[in-house]
């Protein structure tokens, strides 16, 4: 615990500095709280509204996790298909890249029209935004295998399927986890965008509902909770990588 605090002390320092300066600025300039609430009033709001915030947090968290899992499954399947067949690679890769050039903010309202309100369109928005780094990284990982290992597998009599399962999949795991770390961070954004477009619950919904009501404290409370979700999930993935890909760090060092 002490080690952990020491390790992250620079981050804590920066947070303290920003929060302190922010609090001071609001106090000295007498900024009204609808314009910029002080950290202490945001903290008070988080405390007093915690059950309402918790309800919205769970909704958003559910969207993030389900969307992320959909992205993971889709991403790995697509990456495998791309690596196993050049035809599939040529057929699909341009569309995968194109899917990222269309702003998600344009797609989200269409999903609303097609699928309606509810959980499904949010999950799809999260998945659409986060599958891309998963595909790209996993493809890179699968293609990064040493040609000499390919030779080794062939001289041992290995078939293409064995090369895939015994070599390509394990060697892509460190890359997959890099992709997952990027994906989890942006999937938080995806969930919020999905809610902005049309929803009746969740932290993103809470933000757009609170803003016109001048409950700026709640907007900030939602932002802070979202950051913690992002950091927490990122840390979780880093932890899972250590469990499932223990060789990854040794290899890099």
């Amino acid at each position: 615990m002490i080690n952990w605090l020491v390790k992250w002390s620079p981050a804590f320092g920066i947070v303290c500095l920003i929060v302190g300066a922010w609090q001071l600025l609001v106090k000295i300039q007498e900024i009204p709280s609808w314009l910029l609430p002080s950290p202490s009033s945001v903290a008070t709001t988080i405390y007093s509204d915690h059950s309402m915030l918790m309800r919205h947090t769970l909704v958003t968290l559910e969207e993030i996790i389900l969307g992320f899992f959909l992205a993971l499954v889709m991403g790995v399947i697509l990456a495998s298909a791309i690596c196993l067949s050049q035809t599939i690679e040529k057929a699909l890769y341009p569309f995968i890249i194109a899917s990222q050039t269309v702003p998600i903010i344009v797609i989200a309202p269409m999903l609303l029209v097609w699928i309606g309100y509810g959980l499904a369109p949010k999950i799809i928005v999260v998945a659409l935004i986060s599958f891309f780094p998963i595909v790209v990284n996993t493809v890179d990982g699968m293609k990064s295998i040493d040609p000499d290992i390919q030779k080794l597998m062939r001289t041992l009599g290995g078939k293409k399927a064995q090369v895939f399962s015994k070599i390509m999949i394990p060697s892509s795991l460190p890359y997959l986890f890099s992709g997952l770390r990027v994906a989890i961070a942006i999937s938080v954004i995806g969930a919020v965008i999905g809610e902005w477009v049309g929803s009746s619950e969740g932290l993103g919904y809470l933000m757009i509902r609170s803003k016109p009501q001048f409950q700026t404290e709640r907007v900030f409370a939602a932002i802070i909770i979202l950051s913690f979700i992002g950091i927490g999930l990122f840390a979780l993935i880093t932890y899972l990588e250590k469990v499932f890909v223990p060789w990854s760090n040794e290899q890099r060092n």
Partner: protein
Amino acid sequence: MEKIVDNHINIAGLKKTIYQDGNPLKILDGVDLTIQKSEVISVLGPSGCGKSTLLNIIAGLDEPDEGDININGLDFGSRLGSVGYMQQKDLLLPWRSVKDNVILGLEIRGVSKRQSYEMVEPHFQSFGLSGFESNYPHTLSGGMKQRASFLRTVITEPDILLLDEPFSALDALNRSRLQMWLLDLLEGIHRTVLLVTHDVDEAIMLSDRIYVMTSRPGRINSVEEVPYPRPRNREIVNDSSFVELKSKILSFLWDQD
């Protein structure tokens, strides 16, 4: 000349040209080579003489443009999977323990995990790996990695072993230790071995015959018989005939430049 069937490997007039950016590059220009059963031979040559291409062809990874390659008197069928090929790098898979790396070839053949473990178990001692079976490769020394890689190659019991500069990544002391270890091991397992190296001492120490290649395009420049009976020991390096043979081979190699 012996009948082809008496020879384990018979290579005649092997030619190979590769294309680099559309330009033809002649790699092998008529290589002839004969290896009897259980013989250890070395191929020595300057870098870029096509030694690796030759090994790739024998292993079945590549096909020659011209020439014949017979193994056990047969010139058909895929050589892949029947010739053990140990490359320069140890190529141990970082996500597998030593034990699981060693059984890779057995696994590919569909041997069950339990049975594979039983097959490799008795060899860890003689390969200097006992106590390290469950270690991951990154925790091993260079020599141990190379021995693990060697065990992976021989455990599938290929008739023919191709060794591509197996000790080149090691420091001098470890290299000579591993050479002596290999010398003992080869006497026990009676395999046909083709060793590619550019270490003349290593070639003389380990092999029955040495083929010296020319620089690109590769051809066999001379064939030297190594006169020492087996079992051999380190002392032969001090023999005057050893020094003579070494300087003769070196002069062939130096004439290349």
